[in-house]
């Protein structure tokens, strides 16, 4: 946004009262602020409508080209067409829509797109865009429920849900604890009861964290725990423990001390997330985690959970 050039013209004003001057400046400044906002909205909207008009015309022209090709009986070109071929096809096609004229591969506007074009069409997928979110704040039902709309929709603003309207992922926990952890997991959200009632048909009520494969070994872990595992899997925590406890081992300790840790990990095979859940606290309580002080001080949501889980299950 441009800086207001409000101070420039002061000296040139006729020597009236200060109040008059101040008032004029204020008025004009407010005028400009509103002007800028309106100009921006106007620009966005008009450009979108212009593009829609062009896309519609182009689409019509392509249909016309296909029709002609079929009439002429030529075999359809392969799926991979070069640009030249395609522009050749449009050479003598002229189609007209409400908002634009297609001629010789070029599209010319006809009239003001703000009047001629009513819908905003996505230039990429050529489907109409939804103008309001389908759920959450300011939601409106889609104008035509049986029509397909562009996937790019206005961002959804709804407590406990992300911009796509999906509920936040939570950890898989005992059903008893679910409520409690859900609130602790999403600090800025409202209690989980409100979204549940209005969001039944669209998505599952709870999304749990997915599992990912460890890049270093073939096992799968809940995504929020994988760094912790990786630390062990790479033998990093082993080295740290060594360094902290027995400084004399420091230099040669890295490769030598890692293997002894592995069997410890392996005796609790946690391929399934269900088993993993049980094994995680065991590991935590059985074997001291690498930086104990940090864990205690941790306040990230997932760390808070580890603590609650460890307390609950142990």
């Amino acid at each position, binding site marked *: 946004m441009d800086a207001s050039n409000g101070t420039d013209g002061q000296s040139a004003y006729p020597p009236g009262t200060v109040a008059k001057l101040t008032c004029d400046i204020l008025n004009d400044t407010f005028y400009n602020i509103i002007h800028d906002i309106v*100009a921006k909205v106007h*620009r966005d909207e008009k450009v979108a409508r212009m593009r829609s008009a062009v896309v519609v015309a182009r689409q019509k022209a392509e249909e016309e080209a296909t029709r002609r090709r079929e009439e002429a009986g030529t075999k359809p070109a392969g799926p991979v067409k070069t640009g030249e071929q395609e522009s050749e096809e449009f050479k003598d096609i002229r189609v007209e829509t409400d908002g634009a004229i297609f001629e010789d591969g070029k599209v*010319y506007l006809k009239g003001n797109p703000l009047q001629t074009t009513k819908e905003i069409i*996505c230039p*990429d997928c050529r489907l109409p865009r939804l103008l309001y979110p389908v759920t959450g704040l300011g939601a409106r039902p889609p104008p035509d429920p049986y029509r397909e709309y562009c996937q*790019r929709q206005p961002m959804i603003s709804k407590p406990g849900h992300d911009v796509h309207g999906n509920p936040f*992922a939570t950890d898989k926990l005992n059903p008893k604890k679910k409520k409690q952890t859900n609130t602790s997991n999403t600090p800025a959200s409202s209690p989980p009861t409100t979204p549940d009632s209005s969001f039944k048909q669209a998505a599952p009520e709870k999304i749990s964290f997915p599992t990912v494969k460890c890049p270093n070994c073939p096992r799968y872990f809940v995504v929020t725990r994988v*760094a912790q595992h990786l630390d062990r899997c790479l033998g990093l925590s082993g080295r740290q423990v060594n360094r902290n406890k027995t400084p004399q081992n420091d230099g040669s300790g890295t490769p030598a001390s890692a293997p002894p840790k592995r069997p410890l990990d392996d005796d609790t095979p946690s391929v399934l997330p269900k088993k993993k859940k049980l094994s995680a606290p065991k590991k935590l309580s059985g074997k001291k985690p690498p930086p104990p002080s940090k864990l205690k001080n941790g*306040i990230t*949501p997932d760390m808070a959970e580890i603590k609650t889980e460890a307390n609950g299950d142990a």
Partner: protein
Amino acid sequence: MATVASVSLLSEAEFGCEHLASQLMHDGPASNQFKTSFIKTHNALGRRDGSKTAPSSLLKPRYTCLTCSEPCMNGDRKVHTEKTGHQFYMESRSRALFCQGCEDMVYDHGLERCRSATPESTLQVAKKRRFSESSADELYVKSNANRRPCAKQGVRGLFNLGQTCYLNVILQTLLHDPILSTYFLGNGHQPHDCTVTDCIGCAVAEAFADFNSIDKSEGFAALNLLLASWRASPTLAGYQQQDAHEYYQFLVDKLHASAEGNRDNHEKGCSCFFHRTFYGKLRSSVTCDRCGNVTKTEDPIVDLSLDVQVQAKKRAMGGGSGSSATPTLGGCLESFTSPEKLMAGVYNCSGCGNTPQKATKQLRIKKLPAILCMQLKRFEHTFAVSEKVEGRIDFPLSINMLPYTTNPNTTVDKSRYTYDLSSAVVHKGKLEAGHYYVYCRQGDEWMLFNDDQVTTVTEAEVLGVDAYLLFYNLRCLANAVS
């Protein structure tokens, strides 16, 4: 605003309106003259020196006639057109084209392209083929390349893999950067040909591909980047919290190392992509108080580390009304680049026979990177204590960096130094343990990325946060100072 808008020639109209079409349809003197006057008026309105224009109507937007460059007010325009037949005007605030025939603003794709160039070269640039100009090229690209899916472009969270929010905030920032998106999605780093083991470039490239191509709205896990980072740096490795700023420096350094044609020695001038994107230069000049001898050194920088404590203290000492005001980013930059007295004994002046002298040191930005990271030093480590400085520091949505450079008084177009806020990283919690989240701009909207949780926020919310890292993007790359 620098964003990767999917500008597609195929969806642009040839001309902004019918009247413009008749003006520009036929290449010839008339059309060239029109373009020239468009650019001239555009640049004249951009300068804002105000000396030449009539000061009577400065505040409200004026409409300058493109044919006779007479400024009109909103109401006079119609009269002017009836009298002279001139149809096109340029509005003075947004410098948009107004067509009296349509009685509306018109936005012409071809003309808008002429805007973003340096004043001297505009006319040449307008003729030069800078982009793919023909829609045939675009058809070719369209039929042979993958398209970004429409669904919620680029708005995906990153799962916290366990104390990896330091990585997530930085990666999220980079993922939203238009320059880097163009680089990585345009195959700037080719993982298939890369032979480096645990290459950070490959891991970031993979993250970009993953982030943009898959038609999924849920978060994804930057596991390979984590692995590569841990393997590349022993200090980062391990299941523990890290400083996001350090991670940014690490990542930039490693990305630079992964680029083709990079040079390790920054002084010789590296021309690789990452160097030009991330690295600026800081000039530190030390002036001897006795003989006035100036020693200048230039160092490459990837960020500006701004002291906030000094700011806070200054406010406190100023007392009275000053203390209540929030410190600003501008103030931090001000004190960063202002002269600073060096204690006697720190500096040996070569002009005075290498004797220790009192001196004045000043830092100035010699070269600005396209992606400018500013760290507000909230973590203070002194000999006795380490503490985190809380509190708000006001930062703007866009900032002019010209006053902090080595020639702050040059009369160049201000837009060459204008930076827009692209991302703000916030640290919540204590010094040794806490959580990072980041606000990123996606197009015109702001999103809060709290690991995998993505929500919309307003501009006002973003400007109200206690930022730790601020990322600014050069508004217009065409104007980039080399």
